[in-house]
């Protein structure tokens, strides 16, 4: 009890980081705790998804097994008991490996995401992150792009047309959107001047959340995150109505379950990244005590709670959008990615770099004025962007407005066809 209370006491902010044997011990403890919470959380998210879908459709959702709370446990049990099917002609090693490859990167990305204010102990300061890599964000980008291999290999090794089509779609989709995802984060890195996730959070604690500074980058990142996690409206790799179940058509029991868990794990990771990059991570809003100390256990708990809240909010948005929007057509998906997102991200990088150069030339330090200037620029860009998108055709339905030039071209085709028919008669 005394130890627990001592852990929660306030302490000196300049405490040296923990080292030696306690470092290893606490790292292992952090790993175990994160893994456990993550797995249980992901299991509960499957329940949340079903509940939210039910509520959106005016239903009750699962409410039988333990008032609904034990539904994930029942599902897990069912998946363990089910038969593992092995279709004829599969490539066995890859068929086994694919779910693992899909699952591991989503989990591993978590080890560099800081989830709370540092915890002071008598052995030194414990950073609330499993591994505080100096190249934190690059590590996340590298790992999330590995996830596509699991899906492609699953599609290829299944010896099934639909699975292969799903895998191919996913490779095209994820490669396309990875570019805009990476580019959307460049303005953040420009603003921070560092790729460590801890310094990104620190910068936001002082300079305002990046969702204000870099709203457009946030929107691009969010759309790309939907595509990267294969969630609706970008779930073309799965596409129940066209490809049965896409890349995991041939999978059953726990192997299927791993893909399922991987999808939710990816969703949580993407939400955590959005919270970290654009919503201040574990930063408690409207106070600065969480950034300068004195740190205490209570502060750590509070910041973890805040971070969890932010993640859950984004997870909710993921689900809310899934049960609202229908799937994109494949060409719409591609034209959105290549014709809109990538040029927009590129232009935005140039624009933000220019503004930052101008601000530093005018000798304005990061702070209130800096954030206001950046924020108002973003609002202006957004207004223009929405006005263009509103009238544009890139993400409009097939019956959307046509450019007058296109209209004229189509009319001419019709006229020519009529003339040819008359001449032939």
């Amino acid at each position, binding site marked *: 009890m005394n130890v627990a209370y001592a852990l929660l006491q306030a302490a000196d902010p300049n405490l040296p980081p923990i080292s030696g044997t306690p470092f290893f011990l606490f790292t292992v403890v952090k790993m175990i705790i994160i893994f456990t919470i993550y797995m249980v959380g992901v299991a509960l998210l499957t329940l949340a998804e079903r509940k939210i879908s039910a*509520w959106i459709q005016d*239903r009750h959702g699962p409410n039988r097994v333990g008032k609904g709370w034990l539904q994930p446990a029942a599902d897990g049990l069912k998946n363990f008991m089910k038969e593992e099917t092995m279709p004829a002609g599969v490539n066995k090693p890859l068929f086994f490996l694919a779910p693992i490859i899909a699952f591991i990167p989503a989990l591993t990305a978590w080890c560099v995401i800081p989830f709370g204010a540092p915890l002071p102990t008598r052995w030194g300061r414990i950073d609330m992150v499993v591994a505080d890599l100096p190249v934190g964000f690059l590590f996340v980008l590298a790992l999330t792009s590995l996830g596509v291999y699991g899906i492609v290999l699953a599609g290829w090794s299944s010896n099934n047309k639909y699975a292969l089509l799903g895998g191919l779609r996913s490779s095209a989709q994820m490669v396309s959107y990875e570019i805009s995802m990476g580019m959307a984060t460049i303005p953040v890195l420009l603003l921070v001047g560092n790729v460590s996730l801890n310094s990104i959070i620190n910068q936001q604690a002082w300079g305002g959340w990046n969702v204000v500074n870099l709203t457009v980058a946030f929107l691009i990142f969010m759309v790309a995150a939907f595509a990267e996690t294969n969630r609706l409206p970008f779930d073309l790799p799965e596409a129940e109505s066209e490809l049965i179940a896409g890349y995991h058509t041939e999978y059953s029991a726990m192997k299927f379950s791993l893909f399922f868990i991987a999808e939710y794990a990816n969703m949580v990771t993407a939400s955590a990244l959005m919270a970290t990059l654009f919503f201040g991570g574990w930063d408690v809003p409207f106070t600065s005590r969480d950034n300068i100390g004195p740190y205490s256990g209570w502060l750590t708990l509070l910041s973890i709670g805040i971070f969890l809240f932010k993640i859950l909010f984004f997870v909710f948005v993921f689900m809310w959008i899934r049960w*609202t929007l229908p799937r994109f057509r494949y060409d719409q998906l591609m034209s959105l990615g290549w014709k809109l997102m990538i040029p927009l991200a590129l232009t935005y990088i140039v624009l933000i770099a220019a503004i930052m150069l101008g601000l530093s030339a005018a000798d304005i330090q990061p702070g209130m004025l800096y954030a206001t200037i950046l924020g108002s620029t973003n609002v202006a860009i957004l207004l223009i962007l929405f006005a263009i998108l509103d009238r544009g055709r890139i993400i409009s*339905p097939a*019956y*959307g407005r*046509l450019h007058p030039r296109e209209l004229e071209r189509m009319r001419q085709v*019709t006229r020519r066809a009529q003339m040819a*028919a008359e001449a032939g008669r």
Partner: protein
Amino acid sequence: MAITVRVVDRPVEEVSYIRATLKGMGRTLSHLLKFNDRATVQYPEEKSAISPRWRGTHRMLTTETGKAKCVACGLCPTVCPANCIKLVPGEDEEGNRYPLVCEIDEFRCIFCCYCQEVCPEEAIHVGRHYENSEYSRDGFVYDLQRLMDQSHPVCEMWDPEDPKGE
């Protein structure tokens, strides 16, 4: 025959993806928040009301003395289009007819309600009841005692004077 393409130029309000998306998100959120207005009926606990003219499994009404009202006139097996009623009449010392055997095969029954309509004593009825399950087919052959033991409400037949049942 030339293929003609009808080119429709719709107004922005109809084709804008962003407006449609925002509208849809609002719609789903409003349904999400309607916590007390769910369409599901939690079946075993809650049951939706069934029509007063519902035609389910049979029931034999009894007199005050606990005997079946049936006088074994033989009208119901005659009118029955599915031929599912088996009736053997008997007669007691005072000359009153009563059914010795009255068996209804609920599997053969098509629930047309003719037996209830034709019965002069208002003895046989079809019931307002739908939860029937048995472990064997024989379990669905109801004998006289079982018909008398049923306690669910009975069908109210259609009344030409009051076609909507008000």
